C-alpha cells in the first residue's frame, strides 16, 4: 500500500486545488465542519447522558430514535467536509500528531457505537430498570471519545 502516493494524489486533486484557492471555499467548508460537529457531538452527548441516567422522564427508545439520525447526519457532514479539509493539506496533516490521534479516536468511537448498537439495541426499553454495566461504561466511553475527537481536531492548529 503506497501511502505517500495516495497522499500526493489527494493533495493534487481538483478538490484540493479548489480548497486551497482564493475565495471562501476553505472557510465555507470549515463552517460545514462546525455544523457537523454540533450535530454529531451534541446528539451523542445527549444520548450518552440519557443512557447514564440523566432525564429519565424522557423515554430512552424515543430519545434514541430522535438523536440517532441527527448524529448520523452530523457524521456524514463531518466525513465529507473533513475529507475536503484533509485534501487541502494532506501531507502535513498526516504527520500532525493531533490529527493522527483524532483519526484513532474516531475509529474507536465508531467501533464503540456499532458495538453498542449490536449488543444493546434490544435493551433500551428496560434500560432504566436493568441497564447493563458494560452498556453504561460504553456510554461514558462514548462521551470521552467524541469529546476527544473534537478536542484533537481543534488542537491540530496548535500542534
Amino acid at each position, binding site marked *: 500500500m503506497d501511502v505517500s502516493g495516495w497522499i500526493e494524489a489527494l493533495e493534487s486533486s481538483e478538490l484540493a486545488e479548489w480548497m*486551497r*484557492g482564493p475565495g471562501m*471555499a476553505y*472557510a465555507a467548508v470549515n463552517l460545514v465542519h462546525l455544523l457537523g460537529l454540533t450535530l454529531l457531538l451534541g446528539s451523542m452527548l445527549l444520548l450518552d447522558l440519557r443512557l447514564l441516567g440523566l432525564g429519565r422522564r424522557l423515554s430512552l427508545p424515543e430519545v434514541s430514535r430522535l438523536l440517532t439520525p441527527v448524529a448520523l447526519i452530523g457524521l456524514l457532514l463531518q466525513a465529507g467536509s473533513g475529507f475536503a479539509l484533509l485534501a487541502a493539506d494532506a501531507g502535513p496533516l498526516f504527520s500532525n*500528531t493531533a490529527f493522527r490521534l483524532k483519526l484513532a479516536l474516531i475509529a474507536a468511537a465508531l467501533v464503540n457505537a456499532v458495538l453498542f448498537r449490536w449488543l444493546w439495541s434490544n435493551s433500551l426499553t428496560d434500560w432504566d430498570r436493568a441497564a447493563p454495566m458494560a452498556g453504561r461504561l460504553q456510554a461514558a466511553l462514548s*462521551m470521552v471519545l467524541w*469529546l476527544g475527537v473534537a478536542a484533537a481536531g481543534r*488542537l491540530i492548529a*496548535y500542534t
Partner: protein
Amino acid sequence: MRRLLFLLPLLAALLALPALAHHGWGSYDADKAMRFDAAPVEVRYRNPHAEIEVDHDGERWLVILAPTARMESRGLPDGGLKVGKAITIEGYPRSDGTRELRAERIVVDGKTIELR
C-alpha cells in the same frame, strides 16, 4: 445524580487533553521572537494559510502567513509577495527546532501587515 458522579473522572481525563499542548506537542516559542529581512525563494498564496520560503542565516525557513482572505483584507493580495523581493519578517519559531516560523507581521514596501 449519583450515577453522574462517575462521569467526573472521565471528564477530568478529557480536560487534561489541552494540557498536552503544553508538553512538547510542537507549537511555536513566543519567548524566542525573531525579526529579520529576507527575500522569498518561494511564494505559496493559498489556504489554509499562505506560506513563503526564505533563506536565513544559511538555512531554508518555512514562514507561515495567514489565510488568503485575511491577507487580502490586511493589504496583501495575491501578487503582493514576490520571489526575490525582500521583506521584513517578524514571528515565532517552532519550539522543536524545525526551521519553521509563524509570522506575526511582515513589512512589505514599508507597510506593516499584521497577520494575527
